[in-house]
């Protein structure tokens, strides 16, 4: 059963081109907003700087994922080849560190494998996806973000947000069809 109660998510403004979005982002950043985002059909180079977004921490996470892969492969081979089941084949040294060169391929592969999965899950963790819905999808116009329209959304939970001030601000920086996005509670 739906209720008539709505919760304000924020203001959504449309921009026609990357150029307009980029400059709008600079204005929003300079106005001191913190809870806001740009939405675009493709990544725009330089928009991070225009928005004041910091560099992603993902490489650090992946570094440790990869290191875990290397360690796993090393221990897997060390324990099985030296301790549990030493095999004398191909006239290669059996015990100790001397068979290490023969282990490099598997160590490399597992490093890559662990890094790739850390990249995937690290990315999802950092961006908070997957999620079933998001208040911004309440806007009918928003579906065009994945086609050819660029959006700026300033959220209501931003300390600088105000019902009137934010709307006129978005219009002033060139936003079209500025819309109050409200979500069913």
């Amino acid at each position: 059963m739906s209720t008539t109660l709505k919760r304000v998510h924020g203001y959504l403004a449309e921009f026609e081109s990357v150029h307009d979005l980029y400059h709008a982002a600079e204005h929003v950043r300079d106005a001191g907003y913190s809870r806001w985002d740009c939405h675009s059909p493709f990544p725009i180079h330089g928009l991070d700087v225009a928005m004041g977004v910091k560099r992603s921490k993902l490489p650090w996470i992946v570094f440790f994922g990869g290191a875990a892969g290397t360690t796993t492969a090393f221990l897997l081979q060390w324990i099985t080849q030296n301790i549990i089941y030493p095999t004398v084949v191909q006239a290669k040294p059996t015990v100790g560190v001397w068979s290490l060169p023969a282990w490099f391929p598997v160590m490399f592969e597992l490093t890559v494998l662990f890094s790739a999965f850390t990249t995937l899950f690290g990315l999802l963790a950092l961006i908070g996806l997957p999620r079933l819905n998001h208040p911004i999808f309440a806007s009918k116009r928003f579906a065009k973000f994945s086609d050819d329209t660029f959006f700026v959304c300033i959220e209501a939970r931003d300390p600088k947000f105000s019902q009137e001030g934010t709307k006129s601000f978005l219009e002033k920086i060139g936003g079209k069809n500025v819309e109050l996005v409200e979500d069913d509670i």
Partner: protein
Amino acid sequence: MEATATAPASSSAPATPRILEREPLVLNHRSYSWITNRICGIVENKQPGLWWALFIPSVILAGVMVFCFTYLIAAGVGVWGQKQPVAWAWDITNFVFWIGIGHAGTLISAILFLTRQKWRTSVNRAAEAMTIFAVMCAGVYPMFHVGRVWMVWFLAPIPNANAIWQNFKSPLLWDVFAVSTYFSVSVVFWYIGLVPDLATLRDRCKPGLKKLLYGMFALGWRGANRHWSHYETAYMLLAALSTPLVLSVHSVVSFDFATSVVPGWHTTIFPPYFVAGAIFGGFAMVLTLMIPCRKIYGLQDLITPKHIDNMAKIILLTGTIVGYAYCMELFMAYYSASPYEGAAFKLRTLDGPSVWYYYAMFFCNVISPQLFWFRWARHNMWTVMAVSMCVNAGMWYERYVIIVTTLEVHMTPGAWRTFHATWVDNWTFIGTFGFFMMNFLLFLRFLPVIAIGEVKGVLPESNPHHDPHGEKGVQEEDLMGYPDRHVPKAANA
């Protein structure tokens, strides 16, 4: 088949043509929504008759493959033609053939990404899909070649009832790790690339099952720049991981041969030679798939003659590297003064039982791509198709020459025996083509064949410093650098 309808006349240079002006990657100044409509239209509209004409036989052939493997399980691996001394025959030939095809996909998606080759955006999605399906076709061969396919889990390093552990010094085990890692990473890379485009498909669907499914796999993507920022880092990381991975996979495959003591296999040239050959064969397969695709689905503005031209040049380069490797093998056979090495190559090229395979390989892989020195050959779709077909066949011959013709005349002349393929060999191989095509056609039917978001990103107007009211076409060089690294001219002075 020339893309005359979309001749680049309208995208010609400004009034004062500059030297080495870059050709646009999307012709006829197509808009963002045109790109969305054209690519999503393939998924949303009814498929052309040709799609069904290819899909139905593909499904039947995939069924034949399943039948052949079922028969093999029931009767034993002896239904294939290999017997001593040719213990590795078509199965390993086909394994190396298919895994090699996959390499072009990763080259396009990873190496060309790291080297900022923006033309990759039009072909990377389909090439990555091709990679995944080709690796699937490759994977089944060693799986069944072990003889008792139900014991194949013994390849995995997990404790088993006999308390036996794998020999980690064996290239065959390295191969298990390399190929399974390659497959997993390719799927992750492909999927991460697909997420924004799945969101596009989701946003265009009417509510229903389709929207639910696309929505589920789009993970709730909303194109937020705070997401794009992490996403681009993730994409870059995967590209950086896949680049050494793809080079390692075929190197490890070549170790299966190179670390043995078989004359004709025991050479240090194998890893680079295999990698170049894999990229060579893979690009031929990409062209074989994409040239008909662009024609059937009207994608000539997105996959332009420039794209075909670039890929033809890569085929020419890698084909010539492969040709160099062939000659170097012969030279080393002579220069090493090893009688066994010399005999192996003499039998391979002059008086062995399967000499014609060698010359078929040489013609297809080294001679035929030389046509691509000429611009007309790279721009005529029929020539490109013909050379690609030659290369597809040639790369199979190459693996046959390396594997089968070497083993046929291996060491003891008393044990020499010529290999003859059985009907199961033939139909299993044909069946894998059916399986591959079936998957590729389903991919065309349900997923965006071109990376929609990425193609939009290479349009000149996607550069924030592009002035929408300014002169068109002059912003091309701005695309080459990151705007955030731009230093104002005044600061330079």
